[in-house]
C-alpha cells in the first residue's frame, strides 16, 4: 500500500518538478523582459515592480519545491520501509505455512525409518510441501508392500524350517536306531565295521544337534521360542552340567573346575534351557581349547543378578570376530573348525535364550590368553520357593 503511495508520490514529485522548472523559466523570462523595459527607460517604475515581484515569486517557488522534495523523500523512505516490513511478514508467513507440513514429514520419516511402515503424512500446506507429502506417501506404500511380502516369505521360511526339521527326525531315528542295533552286536563285527558304525553314529549326533539348533532358531525367529521360568536352585544344576562335561574334558586331559559361591539366591529360569546354554558354552571352551587347557565355571551374586562365567585359557578370539560372535553360522578360525564339531548356531541360540530370560550374555577375550563368557540371570522374587517341573515329563530327549 504505502509502497504504491511512494511510487505515486515519486511520480507526482517528478510532475511537480517539471511545473516548477517551467514556472521558474517563465519568471526569469518575465523578469528579463522587465529588465529590458527598465533599461530602455520605458515604464521604469512598473518594470522595477515586476522584477521585484518575479524575484519574490521565485523565492516562494524555491521554498515550496524544497518542502515538496522533503515530503516526497519522507513518503518514499516510509514506503520503502513499509515495503521491507511487508516483504518480511510475507516471507515469515510462507515459512510458517511450510514449517508445519515439513515438521510432519520429518516426524513421519523418522517413524518410517524406525520400522512403522503404516506411517503416512497428511498432504497439505503450499503446493511444494503437498507434492513432497504425496511423494512420501507413495514411497511409504511401496515400502509397506515390500515389507509385507518379505514378512510373508519370512513366515514361509520359518514354517519350512520347522516342518523340515520335524520331517527329518523320523529317517534320522531309523538311521541312528539301526546303527545302534548293529553296535548291540559289536562282538560279531570286525574292527573296521565297528569304526564304520561309530562314524555313522557320530554323524547322526551331529545332525541331531544341527536340527535342534535350527529348530530353536526358527522358533526364535517366528517368536515361538518360549520358556517357562520358575524359581530354580543353581548349584545342583551347575554341578550336574560340570559332571556331564567332565567325560569330554577328561578325554582331552583338560582340567575342568567349578567355583560356585555358597548360598546363591534362587534364579527365575527354565532349568533345561540354562543347562543347554551352559553346556553350549562349556562345549565351545572344550572344543576350541588345546589339550591340557584349563576350563572354569564360576557363579556369584552381583548387582544385576547371578553371574555365571565360563573361563578358558584357550587361543582366544580375535577382536574382528568378537563383534560377530553371537551371530548365527559365525564360527572360529577355519583351521580350527576342521576339528571342532559345532554347528555355528550355539551362541546365537544361547543369546536368544538368555535374553528371553531377561538376562544378558557377554564375552571378553584376548588372543593367546583365553576367553570368558559371562551369563547374567535374574534372581527370583523374594520369598519364592523352588518349584518342581509341571506337565508331563519328556523321555528320551535327543542330545542337545
Amino acid at each position, binding site marked *: 500500500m504505502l509502497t504504491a503511495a511512494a511510487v505515486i508520490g515519486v511520480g507526482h514529485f517528478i510532475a511537480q518538478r517539471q511545473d516548477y522548472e517551467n514556472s521558474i523559466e517563465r519568471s526569469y523570462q518575465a523578469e528579463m523582459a522587465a529588465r529590458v523595459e527598465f533599461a530602455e527607460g520605458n515604464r521604469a517604475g512598473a518594470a522595477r515592480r515586476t522584477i521585484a515581484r518575479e524575484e519574490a515569486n521565485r523565492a516562494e517557488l524555491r521554498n515550496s519545491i524544497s518542502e515538496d522534495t522533503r515530503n516526497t523523500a519522507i513518503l518514499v523512505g516510509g514506503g520503502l520501509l513499509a515495503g521491507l516490513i511487508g516483504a518480511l511478514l510475507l516471507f515469515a508467513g510462507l515459512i510458517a505455512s511450510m514449517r508445519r507440513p515439513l515438521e510432519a514429514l520429518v516426524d513421519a520419516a523418522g517413524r518410517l525409518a524406525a520400522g512403522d511402515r503404516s506411517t503416512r503424512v497428511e498432504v497439505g500446506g503450499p503446493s511444494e510441501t503437498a507434492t513432497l507429502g504425496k511423494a512420501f506417501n507413495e514411497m511409504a506404500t511401496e515400502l509397506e508392500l515390500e515389507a509385507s511380502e518379505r514378512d510373508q516369505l519370512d513366515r514361509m521360511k520359518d514354517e519350512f524350517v520347522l516342518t523340515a526339521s520335524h520331517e527329518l527326525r523320523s529317517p534320522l*531315528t531309523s538311521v541312528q536306531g*539301526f546303527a545302534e542295533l548293529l553296535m548291540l552286536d559289536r562282538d560279531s563285527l570286525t574292527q573296521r565295521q565297528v569304526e564304520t558304525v561309530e562314524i555313522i553314529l557320530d554323524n547322526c549326533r551331529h545332525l541331531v544337534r544341527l*536340527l535342534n539348533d535350527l529348530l530353536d532358531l526358527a522358533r526364535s525367529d517366528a517368536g*515361538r521360542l518360549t520358556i*517357562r521360568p520358575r524359581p530354580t536352585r543353581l548349584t545342583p544344576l551347575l554341578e550336574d552340567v560340570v559332571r556331564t562335561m567332565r567325560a569330554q574334558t577328561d578325554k582331552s586331559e583338560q582340567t575342568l573346575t567349578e567355583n560356585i559361591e555358597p548360598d546363591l539366591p534362587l534364579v527365575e529360569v527354565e532349568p533345561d534351557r540354562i543347562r543347554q546354554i551352559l553346556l553350549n558354552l562349556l562345549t565351545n571352551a572344550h572344543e576350541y581349547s588345546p589339550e591340557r587347557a584349563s576350563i572354569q565355571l564360576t557363579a556369584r551374586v552381583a548387582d544385576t543378578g547371578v553371574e555365571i562365567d565360563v573361563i578358558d585359557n584357550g587361543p582366544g578370539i580375535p577382536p574382528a570376530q568378537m563383534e560377530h560372535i553371537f551371530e548365527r553360522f559365525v564360527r572360529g578360525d577355519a583351521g580350527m573348525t576342521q576339528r571342532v564339531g559345532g554347528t555355528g548356531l550355539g551362541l546365537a541360540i544361547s543369546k536368544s535364550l538368555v535374553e528371553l530370560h531377561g538376562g544378558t550374555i557377554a564375552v571378553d577375550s584376548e588372543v593367546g590368553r583365553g576367553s570368558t563368557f559371562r551369563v547374567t540371570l535374574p534372581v527370583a522374587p523374594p520369598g519364592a520357593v523352588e518349584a518342581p517341573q509341571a506337565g*508331563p515329563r519328556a*523321555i528320551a530327549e535327543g542330545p542337545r
Partner: protein
Amino acid sequence: MTTVLVADDSETILLLLRTRLELAGYEVQTAADGQEVTERVVPGSSDGPDLLLLDAMMPRKSGIEALRELRAAGLETPALIVSAHQDPRDADAPTDLEISGYVTKPIDFDQLLDAVAELTAKAA
C-alpha cells in the same frame, strides 16, 4: 510276559521299536495307525497290552486321538507318546489325557527302555 503295543505308520520305525523291545524281553504287538489300536485294544479286558507306545501323528487316526477314545472308554493302561517334536510342550500336547510321558525323535533307547521297564513294573 509283558506285552507292549507299538503303533507307528513307518514300517521302519515299527521294525526298529519291535526289535529293540523284543531284545529287551518284551512281547510286541504292532499297529499301523490309531484305527488299528482302537480295534485291537478292549478297555477292561484282562489280556490286553501292559503298555501303549503310540506315534503322535499317524494317518486315519493319530495316537493322541486313539488314546483319547480309549481313555473315554475307561482304559487305564499306561501310554507313551512318540513325537517328532523336540519339545513335548509344543507338540499338540493335550493336557486332559493321562499320558505317562513323551518320547522324542530321534529316540534314545536307553532312556526309552528304562521308562518302559518302570511303567510295566507298576502295571505288573
